């Protein structure tokens, strides 16, 4: 590529993880974005993704500092490495955005999502649903003679697996919060 034999990439101070070529491998990254909790800030973030054609796999937002009025937006997105870098840079341009963290590259992180699942059924199916819920450490938060509402917390894959198991047992409704994520350690 470079006839001048210049060191590829940039310094450790730089935000850029330069790769030899723009790769077309799709990667999924979890971003934590700290923003001012002001009107329209979520619209700015979502508008950026729709306007520039980026993917949102999951997005959660809530105020995390009530005195400083800052919110944390957790976004799971998929794209090529170059697109992911663009997304981070574009998020950084939004005026009320304070920090953008790519939890996927900044070391190990934990991801959790909460889901509520309504399962309808009687007899054996109902017993089986309860048994599986126990295995997945899901709690029944509502119960009638013919239905349960289970609450389950975990990584998105665990919730997917639980939902797949519940489907033949009478899964009729599901609500998911989307991912909240944090880096491990300090």
């Amino acid at each position, binding site marked *: *590529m*470079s*006839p*001048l034999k*210049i*060191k*590829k990439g*940039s*310094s450790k*101070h*730089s*935000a*850029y993880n*330069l*790769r030899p*070529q*723009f790769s077309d491998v799709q990667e999924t990254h979890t971003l934590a974005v700290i923003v*001012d909790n002001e*009107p*329209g800030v979520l*619209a*700015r973030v979502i*508008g950026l993704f729709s*306007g520039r054609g980026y993917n949102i796999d999951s997005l959660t937002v809530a105020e995390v500092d009530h005195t400083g009025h800052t919110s944390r937006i957790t976004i799971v997105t998929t794209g090529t490495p*170059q697109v992911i*870098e*663009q997304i981070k*840079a*574009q998020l*950084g*341009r*939004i*005026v*009320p955005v*304070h920090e953008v963290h790519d939890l996927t590259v900044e070391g190990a992180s934990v991801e959790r999502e909460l889901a509520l699942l309504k399962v309808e059924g009687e007899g054996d199916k109902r017993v089986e649903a309860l048994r599986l819920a126990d295995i997945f450490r899901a709690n029944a938060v509502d119960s009638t003679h013919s239905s349960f509402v289970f609450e389950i917390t975990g990584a998105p894959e665990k919730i997917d697996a639980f939902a797949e198991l519940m489907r033949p047992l009478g899964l009729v409704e599901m609500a998911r919060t989307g991912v909240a994520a944090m880096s491990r350690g300090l």
Partner: protein
Amino acid sequence: MTRQMTGAKMVVQALKDQGVDVVFGYPGGAVLPIYDEIFQQNDIRHVLVRHEQGAVHAAEGYARSTGKPGVVLVTSGPGATNAVTGLTDALMDSIPLVVLTGQVPTFMIGTDAFQEADTVGITRPCTKHNWLVSDTKHLSDTIHQAFHVATSGRPGPVLIDIPKDVQFASADYVTPQKARTHHYQPQVKGDIEGITDLVAAIEKAKRPVFYTGGGVINSGPAASQLLRELVEATGIPITSTLMGLGAYPASGKHWLGMLGMHGLYEANMAMHGCDLMINIGARFDDRITGRLDAFSPDSTKAHIDIDPSSINKVIKTDIPIVGDIAHVLEDVLKVWKSRGRKVNGEGLAKWRARIDEWRKVDCLKFKQQGKTIKPQYALHRLEELTKGHDRYICTEVGQHQMWAAQYLGFEDPNRWMTSGGLGTMGYGFPASIGVQMAHPEALVINVAGEASWLMNMQEMGTAVQYRLPVKQFILNNERLGMVRQWQELLHGERYSSSWSEALPDFVKLAEAFGAKGILCKDPADLDDAIMEMLDHDGPVIFDCLVEKHENCFPMIPSGEPHNKMLLGEASTKDAIKEGGAVLV
């Protein structure tokens, strides 16, 4: 000491404290309290435009010719929506604007009130940032922050939506000194490691080229000065985008001319053949790069930009430097000097010799013959007759814009106002009004096509009312020239809707507005007609009838790399291949 005042008075006070001397605007119900305050003072001049789009372009012209933010005041609803094109234009070209819009009272927002529109919603994607002020106590602070955001980092337009009840209510005024410090503080100093890498590359490069853009102009006069010093000291050839013209003087000996789709042969060939490309404040726009996978295949690419998102957006950069151009160039010069002012002299000499061969192609040559004025000739004569003047040039969008960039020489920054990124037809005339407001004594010329010019012709009223002697130099080919050129090249010469059948008599039009009109159709009369335009102390519409089917060359056909340029005499048949035809 705090001062209580109404929101409307606060707006005027805050503008004064921010050093604003001119506001471009148009009144309406939701901004009447602010207009009432403007009426009762003399520090800020208000220029009444004839359409809100004109107000925003005028403010852009003001901003680009002064380096200060342009200020716009319009009403709610249609006032705000008419400003959207100008806002988008300013966002694409990174022009600092503060746009104030009136809004229906807070208690009526969401009720589909008369002249209500979701202004912050509509303008969110076309501003750098925007605010809806819901309480007078936040108003002055918000205005000060708006100026900070518009002018720091990569500049851009911001908008403040002010409901009418907020304008009437009173609160304490906050001075700029007392305003909250905004967390938005973009990095201006470049990373020294990247700068050292760049200097090392400059020392070794055999075929380096500077590729500069609007970022140099936006960074301020110091950036242009440092750029000139760096070019002269290193002897590295320099080309520029449309947006960056004037940062390095056209008369400078290392100047290659503009690059890109209608750039000069030598500039594009240098970009294609270089081994070190130093991008300073440009953004690898598609008008510049042409076909991406064949773009400057053998070069190391350095990129200096204040906006991190510009780096690696379309072209992979080997040496990225995030920072303000003036700050970075100062450090580059410092490091380069401290390391002994080295360049690859032998390589550079060969490189310059090769560039001189390319120059000999003389890609801008044209032959003026017969009784019809060639547009190139018109601009050539305009250049000859005005180049000594204190001159500012605006343009509309199309062939005339490219010819102006090719045939006019820009010696200084902030002298060239053109819609680059958005390509807004109708930009140039109102922009020239903004420039003339900022520079009352200067010669302000808007090089226009008749089709673009008609898009904002209502601003003749503004020019006449404020006695602004703007010269509207219209290259009239009775065609949408660039559209026609593309139809010729890639749509089988089917000229669908690209000619104007009912053009006005521009001389009579000028007279109807109380201005002067000049018609010129004979090359022999051109010089006298231009002199007549220059000598007239007032706005002039210069209707220059030119060759109707002239094409703009050189041209990189879409889908082709830099070294596949079409020159004037070349055959244009099948120049654009199937893949290129889908590109714009």
